[in-house]
């Protein structure tokens, strides 16, 4: 293994975020004080610095560290999605943690550490790095899920940990089989090997490897039938962590899923796309149908995140650069609308009383007009109604699917999307159409400047992507041009 200083450029954003995480820990230890909100801003400052170092990664693809890490538009675009997720999560958390009497520096450090793992997943061009990055991310997330030390929070953490452990096992075993079949775990070498040896596409060892990797990634993106952990974990974890998981983990897992399947396993697209076709359909349908039955907003959002994973899988099934860029735009849109929605959920709750049941939302639309407006925008966006980001995301994914002739999957996808309208609208119905009860469960909002800022940023993001998405779409299209 040879190491060059130039490689460090590729790793610079990761190093900055990692250093910020350590700095946050140190700052907490050295600065005694009750208020720790500034740590969130310290974290944000770190992410901003990392973001400033990222644009130069756009451009021709470079591989570093003996082909383990890529510096390309694909990685850079995902870094920006993850920065957005990171900044919004930190903003949302600050006020929430103080109100829940759980404000510690470790939380912010864990978010940043998970972010490093996520970024490594997006940049990884080697299956071992994918695995290490996934573990880095996951371990931080396990801890975050159990952060509140309440019964439900700990249950969520443990569930995620045990099932996640199995999933990692599948992933590792899959990597081992791929190594056995190809003699390498470097993604571009695997791709070349499949190209050079077409007979490999029918090798049981290679196919079993791909199958096991599907299970491993399927678990992380919450694809049916590997989704069973999602509702409990999403509901039990602190809401800010749920937002982080639903957007960050999903974006990171899909980035690796994309690079491994669309690049490394390009030659076997025929084999795996059929399986993923079924998974995509199951994931959309089950996610949506189960979400319809929910009466708890947080749990409903958990099932809805399964459904969104289904739409994203449609893009993966298609497997073209066009579909990949569509997924990237979708994930960015999803980050804004989902964190925005969770921010609203947090504001509706208060200490010791989360108020996540749908009934608590009765009439709050008119009592708190700004919150109502924000939540309505996020719900319409999730339902994919223009002019919001959610529409553009779905439009691009279905466009890519139609282009490759996946008519049935597209039709089933849009019908699913129509079904999902029902439960997103129900939130709006409760907020605006139901009268306020005489003694409303929500008598005030837990809103601080940072949470308000996060909601506004998310809302602006949703509308910006919905109304003038041209620039971002172009960037995403350029970003995938450098993929193998």
């Amino acid at each position, binding site marked *: 293994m040879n190491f060059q200083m130039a490689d460090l450029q590729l790793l610079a954003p990761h190093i900055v975020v990692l250093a910020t995480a350590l700095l946050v820990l140190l700052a907490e230890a050295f600065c005694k004080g009750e208020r720790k909100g500034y740590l969130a801003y310290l974290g944000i400052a770190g992410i901003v610095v990392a973001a400033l170092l990222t644009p130069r990664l756009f451009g021709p693809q470079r591989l570093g560290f003996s082909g383990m890490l890529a510096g390309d538009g694909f990685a850079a675009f995902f870094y920006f999605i993850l920065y957005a997720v990171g900044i919004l999560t930190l903003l949302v958390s600050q006020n929430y943690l103080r109100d829940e009497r759980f404000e510690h520096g470790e939380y912010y450090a864990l978010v940043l550490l998970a972010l490093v793992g996520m970024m490594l997943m997006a940049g990884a061009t080697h299956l071992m790095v994918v695995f290490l990055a996934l573990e880095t991310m996951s371990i931080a997330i396990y801890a975050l899920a159990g952060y509140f030390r309440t019964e439900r929070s700990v249950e969520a953490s443990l569930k995620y940990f045990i099932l996640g452990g199995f999933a990692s096992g599948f992933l590792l075993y899959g990597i081992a089989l791929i190594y056995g079949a190809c003699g390498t775990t470097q993604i571009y070498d695997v791709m070349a090997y499949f190209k050079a040896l077409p007979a490999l596409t029918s090798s049981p060892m290679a196919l079993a490897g791909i199958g096991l990797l599907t299970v491993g990634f399927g678990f992380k993106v919450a694809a049916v039938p590997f989704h069973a952990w999602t509702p409990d974990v999403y509901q039990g974890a602190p809401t800010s962590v749920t937002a982080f998981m639903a957007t960050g983990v999903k974006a990171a897992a899909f980035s690796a899923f994309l690079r491994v399947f669309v690049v490394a396993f390009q030659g076997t697209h025929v084999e795996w796309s059929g399986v993923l076709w079924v998974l995509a359909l199951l994931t959309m349908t089950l996610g949506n149908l189960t979400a319809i039955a929910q009466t708890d907003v947080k749990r409903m959002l958990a099932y809805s995140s399964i459904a969104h994973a289904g739409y994203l899988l449609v893009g993966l099934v298609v497997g073209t650069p066009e579909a990949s860029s569509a997924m990237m735009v979708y994930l960015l849109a999803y980050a804004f609308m989902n964190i925005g929605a969770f921010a609203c959920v947090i504001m509706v709750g208060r200490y010791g009383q989360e108020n996540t049941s749908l009934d608590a939302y009765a009439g709050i639309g*008119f009592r708190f007009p700004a919150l109502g407006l924000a939540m309505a925008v996020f719900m*319409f966006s999730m339902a994919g*109604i*223009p*002019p919001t980001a959610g*529409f553009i995301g779905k*439009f691009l994914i*279905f*466009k890519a699917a*139609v*282009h*490759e*002739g996946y*008519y049935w999957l*597209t*039709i089933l996808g*849009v*019908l699913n*999307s*129509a079904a999902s*309208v*029902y439960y997103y*609208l129900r939130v709006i*119905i409760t907020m*605006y*159409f*139901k009268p306020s009860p005489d003694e409303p469960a929500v008598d005030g909002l837990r809103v601080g400047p940072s949470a308000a800022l996060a909601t506004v940023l998310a809302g602006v993001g949703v509308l910006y992507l919905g109304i*003038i*998405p*041209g620039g971002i*779409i*172009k960037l995403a*299209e350029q970003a995938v041009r450098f993929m193998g």
Partner: protein
Amino acid sequence: MSHFPYLSTITFIPLVGALVLLAMNRRNVGLIRGWTLAVAAVNFVISLALWARFDPAVGGMQFMERKAWIASLGIQYFVGIDGISLWLVLLTTFLTVICVVSSWGVEKQVKEYMLFFLVLETGMLGALISLDLVLFYVFWEAMLIPMYFLIGVWGGTDRIYAAVKFFIYTMVGSLLMLVAILVLYFLNIKAGNAPTFDLLQLYQLPIAPNVQFWMFAAFCLAFAIKVPMWPLHTWLPDAHTQAPTAGSVILAGVLLKMGTYGFLRFAMPLFPNAAQAWAPFMMTIAVVGIIYGALVAMVQTDVKKLVAYSSVSHLGYVMLGLFALNAQGVAGGIYQSLNHGISTGALFLLVGVIYERRHTREIAEFGGLAKQMPAYATVFLIITMSSIGLPGLNGFVGEFLIMLGTFLTSKTAAVFAASGVILAAGYMLWMVKRVFFGPLDNEKNQNLADLNRLEWGYLLPMVFLAFWMGLYPGTFLRKMDATVELWLSRFEAKREACLELDRPDAAVAFRVETENQ
């Protein structure tokens, strides 16, 4: 062609007005109402300039504006109007003013109510002027949001059910249309053209008839739900009865027209062979709708529901005219769309008047109102006559043209449709008899006040238009003649061009191409 961007101006003035409204104090109800009326009125005046400057000799698009929107996908902000959309645009701006005036009595959440009305106007106008398929789709869907709130917040007791049904019905149809739009986009690229959603360019694209068949089906579903055509009409009576008065007026006056407009602007000219193949089927269900709507209207006990079902019947005529596929039928269809906007809109306003006084719409609760409210009864009778097509009023012209067109295409359909005219006279006049004549025996009706000045204010223009459109239809038909002619010649030309695409081979080629990828 450079000129003042009239279309963008009228489309976005209401939106800007709505944003200004956001900043107003919700307690200052008078200011909110006044401002909304001012915005709507100014918009109407500007749209009149559009009318004045519209060149009736040109059949194609006028007042076009074109700007790149999402350049890499070929999506543009591309708008323009022709003789078909001109009148619908004017109807929209006119009815919005009427609706704002008629909503003066709304007390609940006035600020949001007015806000949604202005946003709705932007959505409707945007959909009517869009010449880019994605732009159209965006406005088409965005239009749902304010209407959904108007029904859901200010509607009757079953408003939530009605609002959700309205939304989901429309969504299902439009999403399938979106898939067809995407298929069309890629067919155009496969034919070697630059990627575009530009409608005028896509008009030129020849498509094999069997592919057209499926794409027409998807577009047809979206628009048929909106029209609504029997048997997809079930959301309509719910939405109409639950919506507040002004909501019903806009729903009947403009939103339903979006369906017929969609057929004229998109489904039929894009897929002429399929449109012709489907025509007998469409005419059949249009006739079924006419008779079914009329029969169901006859047995209603609620005046508003009766008017709602009469809409199903009236829209059946419009569809019948369009699918007659000749000059009289198409012109009649467009004319009848406008008529329906005026007469059914006015009927809903009139029902609102009595509902505000009595808080009931049950026919059985009334009787002999003509004695107590003579002015109201007179206006009601005039509008009823306009709705059932009495010569001299607007309904007659449209129905006559439609019948003429239908007769040329299918005598059977014309015979059955004519029976609908008789039924319409039956249910409307019977309702008028039960409400206005006979003894004034219900005590609650004995102190009702006649029309007040505000009500005169919004009813008189409607009555005036009903007479104008009935006595001098030339004003309106003249501006649409050239467009209808061009529409039909393009339809025919494209149909013949597509016929040359050899059916089985083209189908195979299309399938093989898609499978190869």
